[in-house]
């Protein structure tokens, strides 16, 4: 029973990270119809920037995370302007390829700047706490709590502010949104900034329990894709729900099925679902 509870906590931790990454991915997909394969490398950049700020200037963990989110938002805006904006009317394969180009560039850059080594992000929350008879690191609890706060914040932003509402409107109907006077390219930039900012926070949160290295984004981004396909491409609640479900499924699977093939669970689920429902789980069957 303890093992089971322990795995629930682990699943919620991983699920939180998946949530934040998948949310960014699904926001960008919803607004721009872009499957951003580079999202994982932006996540990686976020982790490295936080790491560098803490290591070199001894910045506080929180401040470093915030600064990293801002930096990544700026990188996200630059990527939108320089790479994806010129391709907004191109065939769908082209912006996908451009995303791969961006991924290659960012990863190469990380290699050049930080080398291929594995790093651990230092955290002030490294103590172990007793909780419901379980031993958990503070960082894990912190990840779960921080994610909930961010989710609430994002929800309020999208529902209660005008700018947020325009993002939602655009993800539902791009053409319609431009007709009612929403500035499409401004919303695209903002969406990218939010998505990459979230990725930076997610990476900084995960940094202390996982490791930081140039290709750390690969598996995360792949899983985020699985999540948004399951939850419906462009759907925000779907991304949140899918993130937690996948996190829990993996930690259970790793314990009760096979540790070695843990990473396969997500992809097996995806292949199974798309084989049965080629248009995704929540598409409602309309072409």
């Amino acid at each position, binding site marked *: 029973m303890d093992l089971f509870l322990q795995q629930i906590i682990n699943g919620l931790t991983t699920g939180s990270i998946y949530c934040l990454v998948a949310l960014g991915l699904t926001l960008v*997909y919803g607004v721009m119809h872009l*499957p951003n394969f580079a999202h994982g490398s932006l996540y990686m950049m976020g982790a490295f920037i936080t790491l560098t700020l803490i290591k070199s200037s001894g910045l506080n963990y929180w401040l470093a995370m915030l600064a990293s989110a801002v930096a990544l938002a700026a990188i996200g805006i630059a990527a939108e302007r*320089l*790479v994806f904006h*010129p*391709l907004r009317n*191109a*065939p*769908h*394969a*082209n912006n*996908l*390829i*451009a995303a*791969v*180009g*961006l*991924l*290659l*560039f*960012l*990863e*190469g*850059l990380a*290699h*050049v700047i930080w080398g291929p080594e594995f790093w651990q992000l230092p955290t002030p929350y490294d103590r172990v706490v007793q909780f419901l008879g379980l031993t958990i690191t503070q960082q894990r609890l912190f990840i779960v709590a921080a994610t909930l706060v961010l989710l609430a914040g994002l929800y309020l932003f999208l529902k209660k502010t005008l700018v947020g509402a325009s993002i939602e409107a655009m993800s539902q109907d791009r053409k319609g949104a431009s007709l009612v006077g929403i500035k499409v390219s401004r919303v695209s930039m903002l969406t990218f900034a939010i998505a990459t900012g979230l990725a930076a926070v997610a990476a900084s949160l995960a940094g202390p329990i996982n490791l930081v290295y140039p*290709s750390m984004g*690969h598996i995360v981004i*792949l899983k985020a*894709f*699985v999540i948004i*396909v399951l939850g419906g*491409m462009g759907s925000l609640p779907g991304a949140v729900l899918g993130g937690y479900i996948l996190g829990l499924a993996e930690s259970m699977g790793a314990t009760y099925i096979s540790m*070695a*093939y843990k*990473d*396969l669970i997500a*992809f*097996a689920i*995806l*292949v199974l679902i*798309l*084989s049965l429902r*080629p*248009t*995704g789980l929540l598409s409602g069957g309309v072409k």
Partner: protein
Amino acid sequence: MALFTRKNCPALALVILSLILPLVITNKYFMHVIIMGYIWAIAVYGLNIILGYTGQTALGHAGFMGIGAYTAGLLNLKLGLSFWPAMVLACLFTAFLGWLAGIVSLRTRGHYFSIFTLCVGVIIHVVITRWDDLTGGMNGLIGISGPPPAGPVSFDSLQAQYYLVLFFLLATIFVAGRVVNSLVGRTLTAIKTSEELTEVLGINTMKNKIFAFVLATFFAGLAGALYAGYIKFLGPQMCSVSMTFDMLLYLFVGGNGTIAGPLIGSLVLSTITESLQVVQEYRTVIFGPILIVLIIFFPRGLYGGYEILRDRIRRRLPAREAPEGAKEEVC
């Protein structure tokens, strides 16, 4: 039908050049780079069929190349099969798995298809990495035998291996060329442009897409088997997602949907990488932006750009625009 028509001239010149290349190049390392470039090109020709001509962005290609390589390697190591039958079986087995994957994945469209095939590639990679008993896991497979002599011809020397790979590359280009320049190729291009319209024209698009996918994975399998026989060592790294991204790079730099593109891309990029130390170090930092710039300004890559330029020059020189029959003029 004369062999030396004007249309064939550049191609024939290139074939002759490729045949005398080993006599000119004495640097063994450079030879090796070119052989590897050819092997990648064979796989990229496969990718070109499904992505470039049929418009289906398949992202599991390195996985299928891995299947070809590991099948050939395992048949050789575990069953003691010699290279030739192992190669044939590897190609067939890869194409068979391609067929299976195609049946389910091609029902999805657009981005769903890309994500689906990407996951198929990852699954293949993870299984190869983790199935220690069969594939040797991270340690890989060591000691695969190269091709045994075919009659009096032995494949021990680097030159001989060069010719072997060249032979299969030319065969691949031949097959790809014949398919593309035919009703079958037109059908594939039609699917790329509009699947719905093609279906309304009475064409079973699913059947055609599966054909393209099977052919693509067959070439990936062939490239994998040649890789196994040439390098004689296999590690899971060769079929990781990064390798698929490399192939995309080769294809889009060379020219997506053009007959010369895969060869140009694979050869140019691998020789540049290997010959310039700076490029080797900053490889993806340089190639990533190049890929982005090309996709924005020249979506059909170097060869596509050349074609546009050529057509523009031809239009300016109307005298050379000969009627249909005159193109067969002897060179």
